[in-house]
Each structure stands twice: as structure tokens, then as C-alpha cells.
């Protein structure tokens, strides 16, 4: 062996000439390494592949002309973008390559932005400067952010766009859920514009809970909120029986009575289910409250709590007091103060009390609580942060109870703990944490939510959008969102509107719900007499709506107060109510308007003027529009509906003045008379 080596050495380096020759060869070979690496580089391979692919296409010449070889780069200093992705993804800008099945040669799908202005990694993450596939797409020791999976891509839109976008439903839903599911009660989320994300749910105060329900119900509820109401947003804290026993003991012992709630039943609870159902229907309780029907479907809105088993929960005295005036128990409730009389309170409370499930509390037997149990319950209530969401007398709302999430979308992977079997990526961590919060260690407090997989994906999307980039964006790129205004109407009418909770459904001056029409310009829109009648007996304007305006049993004084306020204050400065008369149009104009209505503009597709012939089921019924709307409003509406109510689906027909005037004349002549019921499908 040794001899062989010696002879090899002799052969190669035996004399100076040989040694020089061999060393030169080695030197030359090592010089060739860099060019060889370059020659065999991945991007060159893909560019070869691209040129081979386009050769056989009909548009080969155009594509070949557009093709630029070598490393390509998009450099955007103000965004910190150095993206060489286009070195391999050669066809991104070629619209004709939409039929290529896969990257790197397929054209980029149509988006509202230009690649040259935003680069690639702003949306897709990954390492832009890398020129190999694995370094660009995956995380390496030096680069944490791998390519963002497609299902979370909308999170990147949310870095700049702070408000909802029509093309990003998942991001919008996720942001909504962060507020609606109460995440932001415990987790602070500071938005990049300095605002703090606010919760939009309204967890009830527990300071007077003993008036409302029993300790047994609290126990069963704490153990499993969804067993009581499947739509409940209260999460499951996975409490032991003992802990739930002690917490319920504390909450009851801590509760102070409120005047009125514990009064003896003033109205006799009626046991007439038909009358109850009819009053429940007439009052449009289902506009806000859902009830699970026999088929298992939820029927009703989600503004208020589900009422499927409400009789198991509430005490009869409390329910009657609540129906009489909910604001006495909870001043900020979204529930309107219906002016029910005693008989109605009895009928409705009897009807609701019958919605009970005797099985729910059948196995709950609690002994009287000991002082130790109550003290332990108090400790638990503090430890679990109940006061983050609920007002509880004697317990302060904890601050920074849970980790702040303002930059969760950039959290370094090295700081995360992963469960076995999980992908080691940030999106997977966030999704799993929402799905099984308690799986990540002993003694964790975050409760178990009942999100669907799609909801978890959308929450993850919204959380990923809260990242370093969204917080350090050049201000010129940020697209502001419109925050809810804090508009409050003034004076007596304002108090009345708060009492009736108008803003739970209606929006005025940027404040309020979106279930019912925006009333910002209502005073310019409707006639005073119609509004008075509407308050007394609200009908529905649109035949196909199922959520409707309830009748509040207002007194004449209250109706006048409200009507005066609306007619005076909610005026559009661009509309002079008296600019056009409510009658006296020539027969010719009315006739022309009718022809336009049925002919040129075919309004009967969506509206009904003549119940005998028209069937349009989308827009408001117009049989008595002449008694409802002001002529000037109709005229302006014809000219540009979106200018008066942004987002309305009535198409803007860009009408000439003559057409708009004729249609106004025709519509204002529709005085209706008795309201005609439209046959339901």
C-alpha cells in the first residue's frame, strides 16, 4: 500500500516539471468551479426549460422577445424588497401563459397591483434575494420566513389595507372574529394606525347574576357553554366539577340584587303558546335572537343570545323585568326597550319560559357553598381572567392578561413551542394554538373555542397580517380603514333612540349596525306623515326581507319627538325637500314615467308598483311610494343612488334630467292606499 502511494507521488510530483503540470491542472480545475456552479445553477435550468416550453407555442416569437436571460431582480428600497424570484418564475407577466398548469412558468393571477411596484415577497414571504429554490422558498438557519401557504395569502393584503376589502373575504372574516369572538378582551391588538382593536361582543355583567339565574345553571354553563346554546361564543374553560362548583358559589355570593328584578311577578305568565308565538313573531324577536327548530336548524339573527333553552336559564321574575325594560338591568344592552304592557309581558315571558330543556340541569346537585369554596371560587375567577370580558363587582379588569398580538405575524419561529407532528411554521403554530390552546403545556389558561376549521384559517390569516411590516410600512402605502364613529344623537330624542337601541340595527353618521337601512339622510328621504305611521305600525318595505323593524308600542309624544328630530337633523345638504312638489305633475309626464319604468329601465324586475302585474322582489315595494318619499329625493336617487346611499345595489342608470323627472312624476303618483300584502313564494 505504502509503495503504491509512493509510486503515485513519484509519478505526479517526481520532478519539477511534473509537479508544475499537476499543480497547474489542479489550479485550473478549481478556477472552473465557479463558472461551473453558475452554469449548472437552478435558475439557468429553469430558464432553459422555459425557452424549451415556449418554442412549441403559437406565440413563441412574442414570448421569446419578452424573455430576458440572467438573474432578474426587483429592487424596491423603500419596501426593503430585493426579489430575484423572476429569475426562475419567468412567465409571471405573460398573460398568455395562463394555460400553463404550474409555476414557475405560469402567469401570475390577476391582482390589483403590479409586480414591479411591490415585488413578490411583500405578499408571498420567502427569501427574495436567494437564487436557489430551497433557500428562496423554505426557511433556513439564516432565514425564518418561508413561503406563505396559499390559504393565508390574504394576510399580506392586510399589511397595508387596514379596512375590509371586497376581494379578501377570509381576512375580513378573521378580523371580524378577533373582535366578535372576544379575543381582544384578553389579547391587546394595537393596530398600525395607533388604534386598539375593540371587541364587538357584549359579555353581560355578572354583578347581579343571582337575579337572573340559578347557581345550578351557572355551574352547568361553566362546564359546557355549548351544551346550553350551540351558538354561544363563551369558550369552554375545561373546569373540573370542583372548580365550577366554587366559581358558581362565588358568583352567586358576590351578586347584589337590583331593584325591580326580584319584585314579585306583576304579570301573570300566560300559558297560551299560540299567543306567545304570535307576539314573538310580531315583535320580530327573531331579527336578533335565534332558536333551534325541531329540524335542528338555527332560525333567527345572531345579535342577541340564542333562546332555544332560555326557560332553563332565566328566573321568571327577572325575565318579566327584562322584557318590561332591559335597560334597567343592563344600561348598554343592544336590546330595545319595547313598551310592552302587562298582558304582553305575561304572554311573552310565559312563551319564553316554556323554551326549556329539563335534561340540562337534571344532574346538577350542589350543596350549600362553604366560605372556603367561595374564597377559592373568587381566586379562580381572578386566575381565569373572567373579568377581562365580564364586569364582576369587586374584581378589576386585568390588564395585559394575555400576550399582546400586535406583531404576532412576525414572531420568530425559534421562540415558538411546537407539538409533535406539527409543521414547524408560524401559520401552523397559530392555527394549532387556536384549535387546541391547552395542548401546548400544563396550566395554560386560554379556553377552548368552538371555531370551525374555516374560521380558524381566517383567524390565522388576520393574525398573520399583524406583523413587523404592517407596523413599519411607509405611510404612503397604508390604506386607512374607516373606524366606527362615536356619533350620538343629542337631547331627548337621542335618549329615546338609545332606549330603543336604534343603533343595534341602523347606521347613522358612521355609527351603528348594518342590519337595517342607513338613516343618515332619512329626513330628506321620507315624508313626515309616513314616518309617523311607520313608527306606529312598521311594515316592511322589501317583500323578501325576513329581519324587520319591530313595533315598539310608542306613545304619540314619543313618535312626535323622534319624527321631529329625524326630519330636522338627518338632512342631506344637497337635497331641498321642497324643490319638487308631491303632486300636480302633468298626465303626460306621469305617462312618460310609466313607459320608462316598464320599458327603458324595466324597474319591474326588482320593484312592484302594480301588485297585479309586477313581481319584482328585490327593491322596496313602490305601491305607495308617493306617500312615503319626497319627490326631490326620488329625483336625486334616480340620478345617482350611490351618492345618497353608498353601496346600495340599485344600479346607477345615469339618467337624463327629463327621464329622472318623468319617473319622479310617475312614482310620486303612486299613493297606494291600503297596504297590499305581497304573496310570499
Amino acid at each position, binding site marked *: 500500500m505504502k509503495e503504491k502511494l509512493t509510486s503515485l507521488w513519484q509519478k505526479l510530483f517526481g520532478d519539477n516539471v511534473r509537479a508544475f503540470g499537476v499543480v497547474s491542472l489542479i489550479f485550473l480545475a478549481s478556477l472552473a468551479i465557479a463558472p461551473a456552479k453558475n452554469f449548472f445553477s437552478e435558475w439557468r435550468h429553469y430558464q432553459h426549460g422555459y425557452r424549451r416550453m415556449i418554442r412549441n407555442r403559437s406565440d413563441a416569437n412574442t414570448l421569446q422577445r419578452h424573455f430576458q436571460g440572467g438573474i432578474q431582480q426587483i429592487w424596491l428600497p423603500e419596501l426593503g424588497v430585493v426579489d430575484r424570484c423572476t429569475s426562475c418564475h419567468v412567465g409571471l407577466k405573460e398573460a398568455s401563459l395562463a394555460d400553463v*398548469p404550474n409555476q414557475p412558468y405560469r402567469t401570475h393571477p390577476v391582482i390589483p397591483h403590479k409586480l414591479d411596484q411591490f415585488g413578490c415577497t411583500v405578499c408571498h414571504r420567502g427569501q427574495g434575494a436567494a437564487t436557489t429554490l*430551497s433557500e428562496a422558498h423554505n426557511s433556513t438557519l439564516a432565514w425564518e420566513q418561508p*413561503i406563505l401557504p396559499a*390559504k393565508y395569502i390574504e394576510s399580506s393584503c392586510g399589511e397595508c389595507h387596514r379596512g375590509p376589502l371586497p376581494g379578501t*373575504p377570509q381576512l375580513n372574516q378573521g378580523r371580524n372574529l378577533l373582535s366578535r369572538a372576544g379575543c381582544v378582551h384578553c389579547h391587546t391588538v394595537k393596530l398600525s394606525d395607533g388604534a386598539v382593536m375593540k371587541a364587538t361582543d357584549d359579555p353581560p355583567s355578572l354583578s347581579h347574576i343571582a337575579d337572573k339565574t340559578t347557581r345550578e345553571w351557572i355551574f352547568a354553563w361553566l362546564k359546557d357553554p355549548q351544551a346550553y346554546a350551540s351558538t354561544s361564543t363563551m369558550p369552554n374553560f375545561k373546569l373540573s366539577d370542583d372548580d365550577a362548583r366554587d366559581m358558581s358559589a362565588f358568583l352567586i355570593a358576590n351578586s347584589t340584587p337590583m331593584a325591580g328584578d326580584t319584585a314579585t311577578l306583576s304579570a301573570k305568565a300566560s300559558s297560551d303558546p299560540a299567543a306567545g308565538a304570535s307576539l314573538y313573531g310580531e315583535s320580530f324577536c327573531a331579527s336578533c335572537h335565534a332558536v333551534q327548530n325541531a329540524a335542528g336548524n338555527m332560525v333567527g339573527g345572531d345579535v342577541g343570545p340564542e333562546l332555544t333553552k332560555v326557560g332553563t336559564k332565566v328566573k321568571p321574575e327577572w325575565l318579566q323585568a327584562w322584557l318590561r325594560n332591559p335597560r334597567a338591568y343592563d344600561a348598554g344592552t343592544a336590546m330595545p326597550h319595547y313598551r310592552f304592557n302587562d298582558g304582553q309581558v305575561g304572554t311573552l315571558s310565559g312563551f319564553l319560559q316554556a323554551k326549556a330543556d329539563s335534561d340540562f340541569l337534571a344532574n346538577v346537585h350542589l350543596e350549600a357553598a362553604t366560605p372556603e369554596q367561595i374564597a377559592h371560587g373568587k381566586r379562580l375567577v381572578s386566575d381565569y381572567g373572567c373579568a377581562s370580558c365580564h364586569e364582576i363587582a369587586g374584581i378589576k379588569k386585568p390588564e395585559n392578561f394575555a400576550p399582546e398580538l400586535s406583531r404576532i405575524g412576525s414572531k420568530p419561529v425559534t421562540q415558538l413551542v411546537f407539538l409533535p407532528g406539527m409543521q414547524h411554521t408560524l401559520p401552523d403554530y397559530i392555527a394549532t394554538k387556536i384549535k387546541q390552546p391547552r395542548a401546548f403545556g400544563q396550566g395554560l389558561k386560554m379556553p377552548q373555542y368552538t371555531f370551525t376549521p374555516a374560521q380558524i384559517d381566517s383567524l390565522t390569516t388576520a393574525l398573520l397580517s399583524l406583523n413587523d411590516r404592517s407596523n413599519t410600512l411607509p405611510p404612503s402605502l397604508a390604506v386607512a380603514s374607516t373606524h366606527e364613529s362615536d356619533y350620538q344623537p343629542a337631547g331627548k330624542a337621542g335618549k329615546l333612540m338609545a332606549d330603543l337601541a336604534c343603533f343595534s340595527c341602523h347606521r347613522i353618521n358612521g355609527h351603528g349596525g348594518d342590519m337595517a337601512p342607513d338613516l343618515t339622510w332619512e329626513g330628506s328621504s321620507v315624508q313626515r306623515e309616513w314616518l309617523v305611521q311607520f313608527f306606529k305600525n312598521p311594515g316592511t318595505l322589501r317583500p323578501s326581507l325576513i329581519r324587520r323593524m319591530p313595533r315598539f308600542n310608542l306613545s304619540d309624544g314619543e313618535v312626535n319627538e323622534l319624527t321631529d328630530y329625524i326630519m330636522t337633523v338627518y338632512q342631506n345638504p344637497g337635497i331641498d325637500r321642497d324643490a319638487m312638489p308631491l303632486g300636480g305633475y302633468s298626465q303626460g309626464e306621469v305617462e312618460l314615467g310609466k313607459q320608462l319604468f316598464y320599458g327603458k329601465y324595466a324597474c319591474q324586475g326588482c320593484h312592484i308598483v302594480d301588485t297585479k302585474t309586477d313581481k*319584482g322582489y328585490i327593491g322596496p315595494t313602490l305601491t305607495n311610494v308617493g306617500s312615503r318619499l319626497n319627490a326631490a329625493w326620488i329625483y336625486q336617487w334616480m340620478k345617482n343612488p350611490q351618492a345618497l346611499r353608498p353601496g346600495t345595489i340599485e344600479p346607477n342608470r345615469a339618467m337624463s334630467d327629463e327621464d329622472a323627472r318623468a319617473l319622479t312624476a310617475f312614482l310620486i303618483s303612486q299613493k297606494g292606499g291600503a297596504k297590499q300584502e305581497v304573496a310570499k313564494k
Partner: protein
Amino acid sequence: MTRSRFTPTHVGTAALGCPAERSSAVATKRGHSGPALVVTLLAVSLATSCSRKTESAPQLKPTAFGAAIVESSGGKQFAQTGSLLPQPVVVQVNDEQGTAVAGALVEFAAVPGVTFDPSNGLTDSSGQLTTNVSLGGMAGRYQFVAFTTDKSHKKVELKIEEIALGYQQTLGRHLNDQYCERCHNPESTVERVSNYDNLEVKPHPFTEGDTLNKISDADLTAIISHGGPALNKSALMPAWGNTLSKSDIQALISYIRAISDPPSRSAGPVYAKD
């Protein structure tokens, strides 16, 4: 360097988040002790990383065999790229007489990027298996296969198609929900009553590919912008050109093309497992 490492399909998988990253990074670090170890670890990690999921699935033993597999529900749904379909996909295994078979093994397979939860399972007492499907990251049609084996161990297949919507189609879908669907979709829901039956001239549902595929993009744009009369059609179709922007209308058309049935020529590629 072998060619296979660079095939476009492989890139597709990596871009969709194949979990190779961290394991290969760790392997490289440890590899300083010897080049052989680097090679082995890299090879192992490359080999296992992408197939981890399928390997960990428990081996199920069918207790019965069917003769046919049919779709119960969940075909032809739309979802955004990479997202879960709104409804699960349910398939049923039947025997020769068409009676449901419980305990038959059903497996799902698709192009990389499409995931099934679960990806296989035994049919329940009603002969059905339910799976949640997430579509791949590219907009287009995804064809996947549900298969079972019959008594003679022959594969019985069912092809199911779903549609993944990209950004533009998602925007179009939003606009459709807001402006178009009330008339163009004959189906009523509790929340949204259809106006279809009330119209003298029936509008075309957007899935009606037989008709809509024959109308060019330019003609569709004209009808949407200027109303039905622009193409001698009913005035019940109003003009939306002053309400919707040009890009809105393009988005609507791209949505209509994406969901048409039979598929439109411009609907993009079909992602099917060979």
C-alpha cells in the same frame, strides 16, 4: 444533478409549504461531523419530509367490499385557492345491487397541494365516508379521485371536480353575491329569496356554460355595462356600467368563466392526478 429535482410539479409542492425546511436545515448543521452523514441525513430528510403525512396514516383493513363508488354531496364547490371547501365531500360505496356497503375502504388522491382530512377511511353504517378538502394554491379546476377496491381487488374510481378561485374570481364572486345572484341564481335560501321566478324573461344562471361559453368576453362586458338591450336582449337586465368599475366587470366575467359548467375554454388548467 438530476432533472427530476427541478420538475415544475415539485416546485409546486415546495411552494405550497412542504415541511422540508427545518428538518433539512438541522441535517446540514449536524453534518459537519462527516460528509457521509450529510448525504444520508439529507437523503433521509428529503425522502421523508414530503411523504410524512401519508406514511403516518394508519393502515386500515376493509371489512367489506363494494362494486361502485358514487358522490353523495360536495362536488362542484368553489373555494379560494388553498382553502377548505365550504362543505365536506361525501362519497358512498354501493354493491352490485346499489345497496350501501359499510366498512369499505375509501381513499382519496389528488395532485400535490390538495389535502384531505381524512385521506382515507372506512365507510360508516350508511356506506358513506366524509372528508374535508382543501384545494391547491393555483386557481383552476381540481379533479381528484376517490377509490375503493371490489371483491376481486380491482380499483373502482370516482372522479370529483372542485373549483379554486383566485383573487380576481373571489372579487367577482363577492360582486355576484351583492349585485347579480338575486336574479341569476334560481335557488332561494332563508336569508335570500331568489327573484328568478318573478322575471318575465329568465336570466342565465352563471353555471350555464352551454349558453354563456358561447358569449365572448366583449359581449358579456357590453351586456353588463350597457344592459340587455345592448345585445338585443331583455331590458330587465339593467346597465351596471355606472355602478361597477371596468375592473369589477372583468372580475365578474372571470368568476362566470371559472364556475361555468361545462367549463369555459378560458377557465384555466385542470389539476388532475394522472
